[in-house]
């Protein structure tokens, strides 16, 4: 199985005159689990946000599931339905119950019936181990529970690809593991994942490849064993020392 999920070629992104991403090249096959790390401000979020076009790139090519993302792309919403995203700050809809958070887009965008959507939602809520919270509002849950709901919400769209932008960095330490556990299970089920995270244990355990970014560039890319044990670049070594020293 080597179907291409995401292909990025010579991609550049500017915020005004600020060159946020420089000549990014990246190919992600279906089923790949990729971890992206790097210092703050290096462009990790920007890069994965370009994949579902929450940010627009200015040069180069991004192809997602066979469709190139550019101004001609007729309906970006259709592509976004196949590319789920989990945010650092969960971004659950506070005015809807957990269940409604999970069923809203499947019903509106995929035209799934309510009964069907609720069945799927309960299945995924069970999978993230909080079916009993379905009728609560997001504000009544802990951070870890909210993030698991956010993962379930993304899964309810049955996406081909899941993007994670630092899903555990807004969580208290004791809640990180419950979220990571869910992510590990997803990885084992073969979900195509792009995770921005500094959880190196997670990277070692599930990643096929680790990508290190700095100053808007991909500096180094490789399987976790090589990446952690024998990083080639000086910048990678410095970063790893900093992050592993605590």
């Amino acid at each position, binding site marked *: 199985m080597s179907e291409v999920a995401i292909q990025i070629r010579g991609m550049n992104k500017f915020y005004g005159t600020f060159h946020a991403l420089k000549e990014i090249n990246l190919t992600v096959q279906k089923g790949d689990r990729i971890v992206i790390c790097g210092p703050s401000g290096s462009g990790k979020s920007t890069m994965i946000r370009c994949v579902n076009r929450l940010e627009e790139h200015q040069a180069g090519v991004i192809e997602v599931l066979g469709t190139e993302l550019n101004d001609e792309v007729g309906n970006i919403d259709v592509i*976004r339905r196949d590319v789920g*995203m989990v945010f650092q700050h969960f*971004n659950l809809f*506070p*005015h809807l119950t957990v269940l409604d958070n999970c069923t809203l*887009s499947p019903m*509106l*965008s995929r035209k799934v019936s309510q009964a069907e959507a609720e069945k799927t939602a309960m299945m995924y809520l069970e999978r993230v181990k909080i079916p009993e919270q379905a009728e609560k509002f997001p504000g009544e849950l802990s951070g870890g529970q909210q993030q698991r709901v956010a993962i379930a919400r993304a899964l309810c769209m049955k996406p081909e690809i899941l993007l994670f932008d630092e899903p555990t960095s807004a969580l208290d330490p004791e809640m990180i593991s419950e979220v990571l556990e869910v992510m590990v299970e997803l990885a084992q089920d073969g979900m195509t994942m792009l995770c921005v995270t500094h959880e190196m244990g997670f990277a070692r355990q599930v990643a096929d490849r680790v990508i290190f970014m700095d100053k808007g560039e991909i500096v180094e890319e490789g399987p976790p064993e090589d990446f952690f044990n024998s990083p080639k670049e000086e910048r990678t070594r410095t970063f790893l020392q900093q992050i592993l020293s605590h």
Partner: protein
Amino acid sequence: MTALDHAEIRAMGPSLTESLRRRYFSSPGNTAISLVGGALLLWIVWTVLNWAVFKSVWTTPDGTSEVCKGIDGACWAVIHQRGRLIIFGLFPYEEQWRSTLACVAMLITAILSCVPWFWNALRLAMLWVVGFAIFYILMRGGFLGLLSVRPSEWGGLTLTVFIYAAGILVGMPMAIAFALLRRSELPVISGFIAGLIDGVRSLPLITILFAAALIMPFILPGWLQGDKIWRVIFGFGLFFAAYQAEIIRSGIQALPVGQEEAAKALGMSYFHRTTRIILPQAFRNALPPTINQFVITFKETSLVVIVGFFEVLASGNAAYGSGEWSFAYVEVYVFVGLIYYVFVFSLSRYGAYLERRMRVGQH
């Protein structure tokens, strides 16, 4: 904490007499102020009750103001005699049951919109359009043998309710559209809307009503003019929309960007993002100023009198203005004031209820 603990704590707290003593009679100075204040309050209550209830006259057997000659209290007979004028204006006497039914339909619509089942843009819009249509058809007549009554003959409280409901019904969609367009990424559109809102807000309502009633007929082609009342309602709605649009926009801007991003990332269309995620939350955020705007708008309906519509306040003026009852203007104003009060008070209570409800689950 168990029930017993609560009881104990309450028992340990100050008793009613004790807390009264502490609050009002803690020192000789305080005691003096409390006594004088209390006496003053009692005197005011007594005087008002005396005037309004004990020494007042409520009905007039012969329809004239004779019964009120030489009494010290309120002459409520004026309401008995002229109340219909205040409520229905010059609507034909035999047809006033239609006005009554129409107002009841409006009231039912208002009550139904408090039921959570209707809290969804489509249902709420349908409810109001239907309620309003019933109101209009009943008032207008001209079918099934019902006498046709043109809006220019409507008046009193009924007309106030009509102009208010119609103005908001026209104004609210405009306000939402303005708020959304003002956030457009195209500078031409957002700039135009910003200019429009500022333009309307810089004009006094009177000017807008004048323009709608008197100047528009010279500018618009005949087929677009419509009846004067509709032009006035449109002007009224536009004025409401200019303010309400900014209120809604403030509600939208208070939302974290993550909300729209999450909806986008789920592949929701612009329409669904706006109607299911952004606007419901924006309205929650903007509830207190929205209720405020509704209250202000209700009172502003009284300005339509300057373009020749006899709404409730103007009808009130007419009710005592005819020589015979001219001494009873205080009673008439108290009555009209009471109508306004009941309305504004219900609205603010409803707002408080909504706020309480919406706080559930929102932390």
